[in-house]
């Protein structure tokens, strides 16, 4: 049909090899931009999967010490990090002198960092509502964690001076 042909002719053909990528405004940033005040971190890695949660916690602590507010958006398996029902298991007896008696769960450290924000830079730790429901941990989130929506993620991204997406990989 003519109408179909006309519509088809309006469809632009894109050749990936000749496409011009949009240039980020970042390429024109002045040499001395304003100091970063707020950082958003997007994390999808859960407990005992990879090292990323530990790295994030190490980094968050240092950012808070520098007076930077941090918003962490935890989704997918990362919502298990704030499962309050995680149990500290005993380390192997032969290693307890080296590692301590118990193997602490990562939620404990998140709780400490959230509490640290009471008197300084603030950490908000938000767990995706869909992800906590899918994994059955909605009723098990620790006190400091907030269950939120993608709207919260959008506001985090909009308000942040820096957004750091931590990739999940296998």
């Amino acid at each position: 049909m003519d109408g179909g042909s006309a519509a088809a002719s309006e469809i632009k053909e894109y050749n990936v090899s000749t496409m011009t990528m949009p240039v980020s405004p970042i390429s024109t940033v002045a040499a001395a931009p304003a100091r970063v005040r707020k950082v958003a971190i997007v994390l999808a890695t859960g407990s005992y999967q990879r090292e990323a949660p530990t790295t994030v916690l190490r980094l968050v602590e240092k950012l808070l010490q520098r007076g930077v507010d941090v918003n962490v958006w935890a989704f997918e398996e990362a919502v298990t990090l704030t499962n309050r029902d995680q149990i500290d298991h005993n380390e192997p007896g032969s290693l307890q002198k080296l590692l301590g008696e118990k193997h602490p769960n990562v939620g404990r450290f998140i709780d400490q960092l959230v509490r640290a924000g009471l008197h300084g830079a603030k950490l908000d730790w938000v767990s995706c509502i869909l992800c906590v429901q899918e994994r059955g941990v909605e009723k098990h989130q620790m006190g400091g964690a907030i269950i939120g929506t993608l709207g919260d993620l959008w506001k985090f991204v909009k308000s942040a001076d820096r957004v750091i997406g931590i990739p999940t990989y296998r």
Partner: protein
Amino acid sequence: MARYLIVDSRDLTEYSGARFIQRAAGQLQSAGNEVTLFLIENGVIAARKGSDMGADLTALVQGGVRVVVDDVSCSARGIFQFADGVTSSNIDHLADLIVEGSDKVLWY
């Protein structure tokens, strides 16, 4: 000119996409930007002295890219000697780079 901070947490020898990270770092530097490649977690494995990937990192350094490694990640993997030009750093430095030393952060 912009200041780019590229954080690599993956083993560059395990993921083929790592080649693009190195290429991106080199080309951003060639385009007149200031680039820091910060290796952390398994990313530090590539910086081991004597490795092929370490030689690639040295070439990046010679091209003007600053390549640094997280000390905790290195000590956890028994890596104490680095490819030429690669220097030891720490999580404090990473926080400083994010807060005051970069315009764009890419985390791989």
